[in-house]
């Protein structure tokens, strides 16, 4: 494999504590190396910023609900298609890009790893076919567990061992990465036309509460010692006053400790926190509770979060929170699609326009920025747009601009139609903090990698780690003349290496790398009861046989990378 040496760049690497020092980064055999031979190709990064490849912790980029969005929104592809060019295949779509465009866009911004945030287990094969067709970036997918009949039945009786055995089985057959929970119990209630809006609302028929589901899944997750913590989208998303449900959910993790060999310290990851930090009783007195939520997170070290920044774009919302999407279509009267996934989950899709002329949207924008600016430990807060729910992931450079420049925030605040309302309902106007490049590297690289249990592999530039490197045409030694320069620099990398292969050069795709599917292979003790339950459910309820369920073989996972977990000792 080629050797490279990236010379004279300003390096930001939280893994080694490097804060902008001029350092050379050597790449050999796909890994970061101490040194390389004189034959190494030299990349001159003078006056540029060098970071590890970025890690996306939460995005909806592959699978049936993403594809449903693509199918039912032809207008999303209107005027957003890119023809075949150089190594790039044709692509299309603005908020729900095609798989190829998804891979290219992430890579051009310096992202080399991404997690699909909600995989319906029954459609794991579809998810993996799309992951396979998304070039360059390593990907994993989180199967959803929070409304799964097995989980509800086991946890009703607090059967942690059985839940854990079922999780291990499901991760293996779906080639899944982590335990995702979406509106615990609420999505199952939706099958009865109901919802669970608090952690104590009983789930109809199952006689269990969201609190019991969340607590039980955390216990099972730590019983197994999975690389990632439980990844939670709580109940009551997006409603005024929902921050109380969010705090109730976070409190469920109190006293719990992470047990794993991957260096992960958190037991609960709260996703798209912006959507869960609302105060007020209706849309008129709607206000930010970012402070209340971040205060709690700052105090409790076993919690990590991601932001879910609203980018003020026309986008496509999609979530396994079926009842929420029905609620949303009632608010904006735009087209609604709903899918039920038998014993496992559901999904809804609704287009949405975050208009700067609507006060609620502008307040949501402010809350999304308040959260990362109020967080004290950047290693526990990661930047996302919950793509495509709060905005397309292609807007990360714009979010970075807003976080790194108060001037850019003020420009946007002044452009809002209801500026006064934004200032009275949030504290965005009084926050002077500007994110440093080091903090940015923590929030987009080292932090999410650690939280995902990938700290030894990616998110840093320590010798021995995967050679995922992004070089930005951004000089940290010069004052930023114009905030727009930040957005421009982070939009298109000067160079990107993925596992030591140069994939982006001067903002263009020059290689498709060696894309891998990350999944977690857990060994557990034989559990005949769980195997019998699975067998019985397939015979009694599933519309497919167990033999057709597994995402197996080269067609679905052509280049797997399994994180091995041995949970037989417990």
């Amino acid at each position, binding site marked *: 494999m080629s050797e490279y040496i990236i010379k004279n760049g300003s390096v930001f690497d939280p893994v080694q504590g490097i804060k902008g020092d001029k350092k050379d980064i050597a790449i050999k055999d796909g890994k970061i190396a101490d040194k390389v031979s004189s034959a190494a190709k030299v990349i001159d990064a003078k006056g540029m910023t060098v970071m590890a490849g970025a890690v996306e912790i939460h995005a909806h980029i592959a699978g049936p609900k993403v594809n449903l969005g693509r199918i*039912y*929104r*032809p*207008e*999303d592809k*209107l005027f957003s298609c890119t023809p075949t060019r150089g190594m790039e295949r044709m692509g299309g779509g603005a908020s729900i890009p095609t798989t190829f465009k998804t891979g290219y866009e992430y890579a051009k911004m310096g992202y080399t790893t991404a997690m699909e945030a909600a995989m319906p287990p029954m459609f794991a094969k579809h998810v993996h076919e799309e992951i396979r067709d998304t070039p360059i970036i390593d990907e994993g997918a989180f199967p959803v567990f929070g409304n799964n009949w097995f989980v509800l039945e086991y946890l009703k009786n607090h059967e942690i061992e059985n839940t854990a055995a079922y999780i291990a089985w499901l991760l293996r057959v779906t080639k899944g990465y982590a335990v995702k929970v979406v509106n615990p119990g609420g999505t199952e209630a939706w099958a009865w036309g109901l919802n669970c809006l608090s952690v104590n609302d009983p789930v109809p028929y199952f006689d269990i509460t969201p609190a019991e589901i969340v607590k039980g899944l955390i216990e099972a997750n730590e019983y197994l010692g999975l690389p990632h913590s439980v990844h939670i989208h709580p109940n009551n998303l997006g409603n005024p006053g929902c921050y109380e449900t969010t705090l109730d959910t976070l409190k469920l993790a109190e006293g719990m400790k992470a047990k794993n060999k991957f260096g992960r310290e958190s037991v609960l990851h709260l996703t798209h926190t912006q959507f869960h930090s609302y105060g007020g009783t209706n849309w008129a007195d709607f206000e930010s509770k970012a402070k209340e939520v971040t205060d709690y997170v700052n105090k409790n070290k076993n919690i990590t979060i991601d932001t879910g920044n609203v980018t003020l774009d026309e986008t496509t919302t999609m979530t396994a929170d079926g009842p929420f999407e029905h609620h949303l279509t009632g608010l904006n*009267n*735009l*087209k609604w699609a709903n899918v039920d996934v038998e014993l496992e989950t559901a999904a809804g899709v609704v*287009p949405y326009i975050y208009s700067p002329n609507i006060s609620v949207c502008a307040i949501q924008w402010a809350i999304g920025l308040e959260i990362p600016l109020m967080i004290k430990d950047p290693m526990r807060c990661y930047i996302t747009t919950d793509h495509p729910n709060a905005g397309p992931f292609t807007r990360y450079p714009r979010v970075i601009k807003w976080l790194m420049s108060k001037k850019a925030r003020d420009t946007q605040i002044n452009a809002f139609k209801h500026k006064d309302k934004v200032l009275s309902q949030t504290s965005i106007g009084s926050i002077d903090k500007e994110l440093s490049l080091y903090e940015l590297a923590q929030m987009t690289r080292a932090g999410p990698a650690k939280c995902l249990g990938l700290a030894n592999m990616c998110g840093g530039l320590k010798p021995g780690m995967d050679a995922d490197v992004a070089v930005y045409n951004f000089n940290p030694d010069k004052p930023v003349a114009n905030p727009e320069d930040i957005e421009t620099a982070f939009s298109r990398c000067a160079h990107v290496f993925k596992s030591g292969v140069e994939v982006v050069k001067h903002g263009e795709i020059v290689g498709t790398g060696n894309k891998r599917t990350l999944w977690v292979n857990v060994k557990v003790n034989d559990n005949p009861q769980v195997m019998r339950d699975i067998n019985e459910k397939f015979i009694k309820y599933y519309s497919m046989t167990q033999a057709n369920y597994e995402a197996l073989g080269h067609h679905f996972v052509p280049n797997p990378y399994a994180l091995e977990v041995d949970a037989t000792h417990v």
Partner: protein
Amino acid sequence: MKNPPALYLEADNVTPDGFAGKTAAQITELHVHEGNTTSTLGKYFEVSGNAGATAADTKIIVKGDVKKVKYLGMKMSAGEMVIEGSADQYVGAWMTGGKLLAKGNVEAFAATAMRGGELIVEGNAGNYLGAAYRGDWRGMSSGKILIKGNAGSDIGMYMTGGEIVVNGNVDVHVMTHAEGGKTIVKGNTKSKLGGQLVDGTIIVFGNIETMMPGYKPNGEVELEVDGVKALFSHYIGDMGERHKKRKGAIVYGNLYKKI
């Protein structure tokens, strides 16, 4: 028109905006697409005369048989364009201003999501005139369309503003899902007028073959439409659809049929 294309030609550069500030020679170099091959306007058209400095002072006359040419006048914002014959789909689609005259017929999707300006067709128009793009919920929002002949089905679908006048007859589905705007049909209509209409106005001078069940008679009114004063039956609807409230009162869509 020369070298008639075997496939349909996509000529979205043929607009006052695309030509503005260019000489005849530069205009012949503009791109057109035939299937998956890209070539230049000069392959298919002789170009004479230079464009004005801006779109507003550019006038384009399209001569010859352009029945297989799509997207003429697409996204035009100002100026004037005359198509002397008949054209294919998407004439004046997404136009925001200016004046576009087709002396022959135009095919489907003319004035898709039009936001301003004026489209006049001396012949017939196809389906989805002034409608939203496939999947979109934003049809024609402003501007004026006059069809001197007949129009096809699904005209004014998802319309939110502006005016469509059809001097002849129209096919099924008029202003489906509309949330504003006005459509006047001087000839006869078939069925499904104003299905799922939230707001907007449909005025019919001729027959309505089948009324939608969601419309409720609301008496008779005298109206002056396009300079003609006449008595009309008034209906409100679509009763099966959501409606906005204005000053506490529900705002229904209006359907008028000349008595």
